[in-house]
């Protein structure tokens, strides 16, 4: 088969997979949302409203239609880019997602960078000094991040570094007098304030972000270092590392140049998945730090039975996961020549 055609088929089948995944996700969240014992009408009208008001809202939400018809309507709207209106913010869900997602993206990206920059060397060191004291120390550090509830860690962090020491700013994205000063362009407060040249706001934002980002970083480093360690252990015991050493390669070259290069391939997937985890799993961090992110949005919408918002948010997270998977596939191929051979 010639190459362009092969590529075409690849992309085509990938798109079909993505489409099926997303429709499946939409269906799953939709039907779970409908069978949950929560009454969306009630959350809008309150328990003291008259039956007439209840009925009006019931019809407005289209709840009188059969379930499959409601889902069909919903899918149709999705295809037109209409996620519906969130009753708890009175804005289109899409607007809300664009409003809340950048804050999460910003926080978890920095968290991931911290996690990778610290976690990978930790995992390598751990594997290199396997079962020696550096390994034990690093594993305990990782274990704490893995097993201590992030919620508790957040409060302790706030207490020490914000309240006692005053090294970082407290909850929220900015100090009060900076809120709304910078024009919203990308939604990322760091980028927007940098574009505006408002450097004191930029640094204020960093100061607010430091603690939650470090916590998220710690959280992901725990996972990344653990995976790095096991992948590296596997690589270091391989013959090619021994060969390299016998050939007189320096220890650094043998470990970083040879073993880590090969370990990088599975690690790409680990890192991509851990990014996805950070994006969706920072609900607790966002709650403690009053961070206006997507986790907070989905969480409070769920409690308000604001199903359009919940569905929209879940779909967004689903899309992100699919995209990350795709990215890790691409990187996998780029890094591993064998997978390219195979594809041909």
């Amino acid at each position, binding site marked *: 088969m010639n190459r362009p055609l092969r590529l075409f088929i690849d992309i085509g089948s990938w798109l079909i997979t993505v489409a099926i995944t997303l429709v499946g996700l939409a269906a799953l969240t939709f039907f779970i949302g409908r069978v949950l014992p929560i009454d969306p009408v009630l959350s*809008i009208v309150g328990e003291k409203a008259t039956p007439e008001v209840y009925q009006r809202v019931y019809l407005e939400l289209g709840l009188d239609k059969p379930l499959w018809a409601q889902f069909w309507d919903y899918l149709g709207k999705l295809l037109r880019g209409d996620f519906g209106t969130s009753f708890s913010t009175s804005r289109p869900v899409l607007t809300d997602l664009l409003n809340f997602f950048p804050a999460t993206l910003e926080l978890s990206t920095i968290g991931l960078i911290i996690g990778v920059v610290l976690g990978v060397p930790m995992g390598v060191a751990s594997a290199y000094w396997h079962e020696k004291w550096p390994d034990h120390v690093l594993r305990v550090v990782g274990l704490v991040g893995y097993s201590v509830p992030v919620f508790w860690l957040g409060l302790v962090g*706030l*207490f020490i570094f*914000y309240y006692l020491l005053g090294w970082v*700013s407290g909850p929220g994205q900015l100090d009060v007098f900076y*809120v709304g000063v910078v024009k919203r362009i990308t939604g990322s407060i760091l980028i927007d304030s940098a574009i505006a040249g408002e450097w004191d706001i930029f640094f204020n934002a*960093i100061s607010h972000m430091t603690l939650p980002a470090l916590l998220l970083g710690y959280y992901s480093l725990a996972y990344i270092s653990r995976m790095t360690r096991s992948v590296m252990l596997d690589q270091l015991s391989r013959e090619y590392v021994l060969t390299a050493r016998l050939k007189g390669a320096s220890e650094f070259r043998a470990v970083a140049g040879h073993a880590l290069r090969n370990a990088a391939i599975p690690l790409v997937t680990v890192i991509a998945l851990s990014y996805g985890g950070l994006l969706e799993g920072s609900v607790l961090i966002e709650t403690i730090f009053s961070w206006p992110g997507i986790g907070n949005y989905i969480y409070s919408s769920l409690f308000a039975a604001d199903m359009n918002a919940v569905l929209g948010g879940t779909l967004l997270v689903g899309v992100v996961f699919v995209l990350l998977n795709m990215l890790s596939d691409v990187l996998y191929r780029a890094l591993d020549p064998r997978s390219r051979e195979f594809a041909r």
Partner: protein
Amino acid sequence: MRLFKTLMAVAVGAVMTASGAIAETPKNTLVIADAIDDIITLDPAEVSEVGGVLASQQIYQPLVSFDPADPTKINGVLAESWSVSEDGKTFTFKMNPNAKFASGNPVTAADAEYSLQRVILLDSRISFILTQFGLNKDNVKDNIKAVDPQTLQLVVDQKYAPSFVLYVLSSFTGGIVDSAVVKQHEGKREDGSNDYGNAWLKAENSAGSGPYVLTKWDPKVSILLSRNENYWGTAPGVDRVFLQHMPESATQRLALEKGDIDIANKLGPDDIGAVSANPDVQILEGVSSTMYYFGLNVRNPALANPKVVEAIKYGVDYQGIADTIGKGTIKVHQTMIPDGFLGGGINYNPYSLDIEKAKALIAESGVATPIKLATVVWNVPPYPDYAQAVQATLSQIGVDLDLQVVDGGPWLDRYRSHDLDVWFGLWGPDYPDPHSNAKAFGNHDPSDPDGQKGNLADRFGWDSGKVSELVNQAVQEQDVEKRKALYDEAQRLHTDTSPFVFMFQDSRKVSMRKNVKGVVLGITFSDDRYGGVSKE
């Protein structure tokens, strides 16, 4: 390279703040931490969430209000004076000529007419507050009418106590909007009907006459109010009020002690205890009209026996729960009208934990023990704690509560149904008049045996008999003192005979920085007033 820069930026930021770059809240801004993710609207015609009412009360004003320190005193706000016709059905308000809106427009009777009518015409979820006067879409244009620019007439369907009507109008539902401005922004709803500016008022806009105007509302994140430059009353001492969404009590506490917020509105009992030791923090105590109770469904044969009901009332350790779980945030209150309301404060708390007496009463009742009762409670603190404490003592008298801790939805579903045994709940009045509570707990509507219209007495299957008569007499009584006496009698009878076990009334405790002056705590939920606030 980019990575390196980002890391540098993080490092620089950390150093910056370590060198003391953290500032206190600005003098001209009042920063309030609260859980505001429940707010779905700030339009006074439909607002009813705790946070939403709190914000909209700073923006919109009613015709009449009352003094939170002495709620029996009703005073004019946008209305200067009022009178009631001989038959008690027609209320005539003279508008205050000094009042004007943030736009600079004078407040006229036409604005009041438009504002009150739109509550009904919008089919608003809080329209029940006004429809109880017999108002509906068909008659509202005749019954709420501006006779001339300075005179508004309200016609109600029967004779009511004037204080009742006035208290209702003083509630958040009675907020008056600038009709000239809102009419310009009227749109269509999905079903094609007029939205009376509802969408516009929900989208970061306001049109009120209160001390503040809405500047920015970022749903689930923050609300920024700015001083109304055209305010016709005494201007507030701060330029801005900033409500920040900060749901965690522990986080609020740290931010308050640190000085990053001025007022912490959602501190739990433990954190209030902790901050009270801080010399920079003051605790304002107020009255809250929220009450905790549990209801017994008398359709259950065991609960239909008055001796069993009485036994259960003796099987609750009221004071113990208030001391150990409530820690000063609640006080024992066993009557249906909260302290602070007209007719409240009669201090009638006849029950306390008495296991022997309760056991004797059960024995007298002839009902076989153990009496098993299905019970639901909301899974949000402190409700389950109260319920579990009650469960523990009741088990000693042979009453077993099968306690289900459930989500808000199922909890309310059970409440609305009539097949439950015991329901743990709370009640917050919708308007600062005793009738809000008296009607719910004491009124019996024979045409509505399941309580679909919202009467709790009927939901729990109770024919309140004499209490119902007293309640209906009281709401029509023209003389305030006589009305008070009627509520006194109704409450004692209710406490003695009803299947409702009133336990506590909330004591409001709000923690704020020492330098904040002039906050007035309201008596209904979220009626706190920031119009007179200043910071030293």
